[in-house]
């Protein structure tokens, strides 16, 4: 088999040595440094094996036949003709699923292959394997499925109506979160309210869903796949394949971005079923169009908010109703409702609160996890309303937010104590004080103007606007979930050099977790060379690469395993040196005494032995919220960020050029400062995309724009320069003080951009993405 990214033995090139040591005894590339990513060279030479690059000698190709209807009854499936196509090796339907024909992240409510009903456009109905992908596609087109089209629920605002068709029994409600705090009948002298609508966003990771399933001699299967959480995939695959975990082995193939869109299964069971049936390795790789149907999206949302405040802008109460379209299957909708409900009023002190958040089933595409997870939608509402409040009381947008901003020691709307830094006012001040971009020249280059080389304006009709937004986001899994990661660390001498090997199942999706794992090992073990073992299910779960949790939770597990290894090594050294363990440390492959004197070499202590330890790390427990009041310690950590956007808007044509997008964020401790900034840049871009251009357009249950021609993501011409300021207020409860980084920038950037456009054009703009006609009012 070809490929070098994590499936063909320990062949990932993970040598450290990217920067020279500065002193003889301090290991470079520790936490707080910014060593280069160990897979960087493979990625720039084209040798890094993404899931779609995998190849096996006698492999065949699998394709999926999907439903053309949002809701239909399957009257019959005839595969006879498809089977006669030369080159076809298998055609499978629901009857061929050996285990339970069901999967799902939180509830196994989705069939692996449709039985009786299809509930959304794009639902998998049948599979074909053939010797060429085009042969498989043509054969799939010859499967005859007889559908009886049924009425579909496509407007989530009517999904809970009495006469709405039921997508599932008993009804279309996935979750209602009710939250009540303080005085429910309180009034206030200043009242502002609004309705906001947020469109459906796509993760649009560039690496298509892909995997290679290889049937094994023990009757099981090895699946090489791009995913965010190997073990949750394994659990669902075991159910559907009717096999124990030891026969369903997963290996992380190279992942081309994720952003939540790889939390749910894609090719996993399908490729495995075909491999087990044909006895051959099966590759599946979605086209871009299929990818739009092959993963969940960000929930579109309808939000109704009201704030009551004193005349000085101090919030007295907030009332909010949030409706999220979950689409046809549950996926992670309940947890997204949890976030939208418990965090949906933003990082503000509000004594009296009523929130109702709903997730509903419809026959629209299933929605689930995407970076920012429920907080993104809510932030467009609470931040737009904050600007309304500022106007109503005659304050500027920064001051009104600072006046109400959460501080350490406050309680949030679920009554949870904010027990580490909450620098809302400071973050806002930082972005407000950053230098503004220069005013536009009279003879500005076209490429710097709205419309760019479309030559739509030379500056006439162009108005500049500035907007602010601030957010907070939970880090890690919430509401009582047993959230943990596992790490195995091994230390040994190889060819005269000390080598640490770190093995976790935590998915590297591009964010740089493997670099962080190396940095932690170097810091704790004082060795420079750290090999990152290919990621697979041969070690315990690493939890999900989501909720901005991996540096925190898998980082905590790697630290714990390193400490356990170090304890063994130092105990041996102490015994042979006749010293106290507490006086020894490991650095630069040496055992060093209290004043830094070298006592002996690691080589002498280890000899031929390898020391290996495995540890699990759990963050502090979280708790379910009260079903009546929504009160409880639902989350373990909160991360805060603020953005300032500057835009030029052609108010006549409705075109927008983002001129600057600046941000400040508290990351607790930057393990790898360069990578932290990279996360903030990328996250900010995705938030901006939702504000201005990104929407999956769904009409009557049909996706209208499943391509990069029609679903636009920001290009390098759309993105402005970004000033990023990073604060490091250590969280005393987290390993090294870290605070999750990945999501907050995606949450606060979009509302800041929307606010800036509003400021420029003077219209309320209550829907994102903002379209030209919203700006011009035509």
């Amino acid at each position: 088999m070809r490929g070098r990214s994590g499936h063909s033995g320990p062949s990932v090139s993970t040598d450290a040595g990217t920067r020279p040591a500065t002193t003889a005894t301090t290991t470079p590339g520790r936490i707080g440094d910014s060593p280069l990513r160990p897979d960087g060279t493979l990625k720039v030479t084209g040798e890094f094996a993404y899931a779609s690059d995998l190849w096996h000698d006698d492999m065949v190709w699998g394709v999926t036949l999907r439903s053309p209807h949002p809701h239909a009854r399957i009257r019959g499936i005839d595969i006879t003709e498809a089977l006669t196509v030369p080159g076809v090796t298998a055609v499978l339907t629901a009857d061929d699923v050996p285990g339970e024909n069901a999967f799902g992240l939180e509830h196994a409510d989705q069939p692996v292959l449709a039985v009786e009903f299809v509930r959304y456009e794009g639902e998998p109905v049948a599979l074909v394997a053939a010797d060429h992908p085009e042969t498989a596609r043509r054969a799939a087109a010859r499967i005859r499925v007889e559908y009886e089209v049924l009425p579909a629920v496509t407007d989530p605002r009517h999904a809970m109506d009495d006469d709405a068709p039921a997508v599932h029994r008993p009804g279309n409600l996935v979750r209602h979160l009710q939250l009540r705090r303080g005085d429910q009948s309180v009034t206030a002298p200043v009242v502002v309210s609004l309705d906001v609508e947020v469109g459906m966003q796509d993760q649009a990771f560039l690496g298509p869903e892909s995997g290679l399933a290889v049937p094994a001699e023990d009757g099981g299967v090895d699946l090489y796949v791009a995913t965010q959480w190997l073990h949750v995939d394994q659990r669902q695959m075991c159910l559907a394949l009717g096999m124990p975990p030891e026969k369903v082995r997963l290996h992380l193939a190279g992942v081309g971005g994720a952003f939540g869109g790889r939390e749910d299964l894609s090719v996993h069971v399908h490729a495995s079923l075909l491999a087990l049936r044909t006895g051959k390795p099966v590759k599946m790789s979605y086209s871009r169009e299929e990818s739009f149907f092959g993963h969940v999206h960000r929930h579109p949302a309808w939000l109704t908010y009201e704030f009551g405040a004193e005349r000085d802008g101090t919030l007295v109460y907030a009332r909010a109703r949030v409706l999220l379209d979950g689409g046809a299957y549950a996926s992670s909708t309940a947890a997204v409702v949890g976030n939208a409900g418990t965090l949906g009023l933003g990082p503000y002190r509000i004594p009296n609160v009523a929130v109702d958040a709903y997730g509903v089933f419809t026959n629209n595409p299933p929605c689930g996890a995407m970076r920012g997870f429920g907080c993104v939608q809510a932030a467009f509402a609470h931040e737009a309303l904050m600007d309304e409040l500022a106007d109503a009381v005659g304050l500027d947008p920064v001051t009104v937010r600072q006046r109400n901003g959460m501080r350490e020691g406050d309680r949030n709307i679920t009554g949870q104590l904010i027990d580490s830094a909450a620098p809302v006012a400071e973050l806002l001040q930082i972005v407000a004080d950053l230098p503004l971009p220069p005013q536009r020249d009279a003879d500005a280059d076209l490429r710097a103007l709205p419309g760019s080389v479309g030559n739509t304006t030379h500056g006439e009709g162009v108005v500049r606007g500035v907007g602010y937004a601030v957010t907070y986001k939970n880090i890690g899994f919430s509401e009582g979930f047993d959230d943990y990661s596992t790490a195995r660390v091994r230390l040994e001498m190889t060819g005269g050099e000390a080598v640490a090997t770190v093995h976790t199942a935590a998915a590297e999706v591009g964010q740089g977790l493997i670099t962080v794992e190396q940095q932690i090992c170097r810091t704790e073990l004082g060795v420079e060379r750290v090999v990152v073992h290919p990621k697979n299910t041969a070690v315990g779960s690493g939890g999900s690469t989501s909720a901005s949790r991996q540096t925190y939770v898998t980082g905590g597990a790697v630290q714990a395993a390193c400490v356990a290894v170090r304890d063994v090594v130092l105990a041996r050294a102490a015994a042979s040196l006749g010293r106290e363990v507490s006086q020894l440390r490991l650095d630069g492959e040496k055992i060093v005494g209290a004043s830094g004197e070298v006592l002996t070499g690691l080589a002498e202590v280890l000899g031929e032995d390898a020391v290996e330890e495995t540890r699990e790390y759990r963050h502090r427990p979280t708790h379910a919220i009260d079903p009546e009041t929504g009160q409880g310690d639902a989350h373990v950590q909160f991360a805060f960020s603020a953005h300032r956007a500057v835009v030029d808007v052609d108010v006549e044509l409705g075109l927008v050029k983002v001129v600057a997008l600046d941000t400040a964020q508290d990351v607790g401790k930057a393990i790898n400062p360069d990578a932290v900034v990279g996360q903030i840049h990328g996250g900010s871009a995705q938030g901006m995309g939702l504000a201005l251009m990104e929407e999956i357009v769904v009409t009557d249950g049909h996706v209208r724009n499943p391509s990069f021609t029609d679903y636009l993501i920001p290009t390098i011409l759309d993105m402005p320069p970004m000033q990023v300021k990073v604060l490091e207020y250590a969280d005393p409860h987290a390993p090294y003080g870290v605070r999750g980084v990945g999501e907050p920038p995606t949450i606060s950037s979009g509302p800041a951009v929307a606010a800036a456009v509003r400021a420029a054009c003077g219209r309320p703009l209550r829907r994102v993405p903002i379209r030209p006609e919203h700006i011009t009012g035509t």
Partner: protein
Amino acid sequence: MRITTTVNGTEHEVDDVWAGESLLYVLRERMGLPGSKNACEQGECGSCTVYLDGEPVCACLVAAGQAIGREVTTVEGLATEGELHPVQEAFVEAGAVQCGFCTPGLLVAAHDLLERVPDPSDLEIREALAGNLCRCTGYEKILDAVRLAAARQARP
């Protein structure tokens, strides 16, 4: 159909190519060169960018038959004798690579820009790379990388 093409200086010959296959498919699936990426296969993302007779093209839009007898250079051909090209080095060092799926196409596009314009302005960089989507980086560090590569190449 038989396809004979020179890729990265080596002649490749493959048989039984179906007429509908793109140059990208043939490179990735038949010639063992999966470095060029397949993020959209619709000419929208630039991840498949290769040189065809010295011109950067989207390999997904070129029918394999059109490449017969021509010279192709892919990301796998940018390094020489195991030495990374300065553009490749700069992408790694500047942190322009996260997931890296956009990287092969961006490298070819940036390589081509610096051949034509050794000291590009930021606007020139943005315009030259406007056909290459990246979902991870927000492009800031990609700009850094191209500036770094330009500065290094300017040094004698």
